[in-house]
């Protein structure tokens, strides 16, 4: 059974706009990770946030974690066409569980 659930399932934006994706999960976790997958580079780790952290930044990425609501969000600022990909959240509690992903399309 999948624990992480991303929302929305698909998102289409213009280059330069911000993209926000959400992830909800069901049980307690140690950390939550976001990954990107496109046909050219496969699955790539983006950022990891521990359960005792609330916010983390990496370049144009901002991740928040709310353990009371069992949810996380990934914000990509100033999006580029190269950001077009599927984005997955993965929770680590007793094991690793990936969500079904959000398909992001950034239009030039």
């Amino acid at each position, binding site marked *: 059974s999948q624990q992480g659930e991303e929302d929305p399932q698909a998102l289409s934006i213009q280059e330069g706009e911000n993209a926000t994706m959400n992830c909800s999960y069901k049980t307690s976790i140690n950390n939550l990770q976001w990954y990107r997958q496109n046909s050219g580079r*496969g699955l790539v780790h983006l950022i990891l946030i521990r359960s005792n952290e609330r916010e983390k930044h990496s370049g144009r990425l901002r991740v928040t974690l709310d353990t009371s609501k069992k949810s996380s969000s990934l914000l990509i600022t100033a999006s580029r066409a190269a950001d077009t990909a599927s984005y*997955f959240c993965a929770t680590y509690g007793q094991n690793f569980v990936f969500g079904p992903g959000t398909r992001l399309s950034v239009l030039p």
Partner: protein
Amino acid sequence: EAGVVQSPRYKIIEKKQPVAFWCNPISGHNTLYWYRQNLGQGPELLIRYENEEAVDDSQLPKDRFSAERLKGVDSTLKIQPAELGDSAVYLCASSLGVLVGYNEQFFGPGTRLTVL
């Protein structure tokens, strides 16, 4: 630094035939994972190794799937016999360890299996 290596990249077989996938993780990574990914879905963990020990294989269909990680380095995932529903991409990943904050995973390119 070399990434996670998988072979073959593509495999087409007929149902009931056996098939094997090979993975070489990043040097020094103690934890190795095998995932299955169906089209349009996220990866599903099949098995996780800590060195040579399989510590999480709850999602591995043990009637037809088997895996091994000899000497705690390379790993092989086998399906025998394959069924039509096994068509998917099989991904291998590795990480330094499973300790909190150190388990970001590095994925290989995957093996795309087609069962006819």
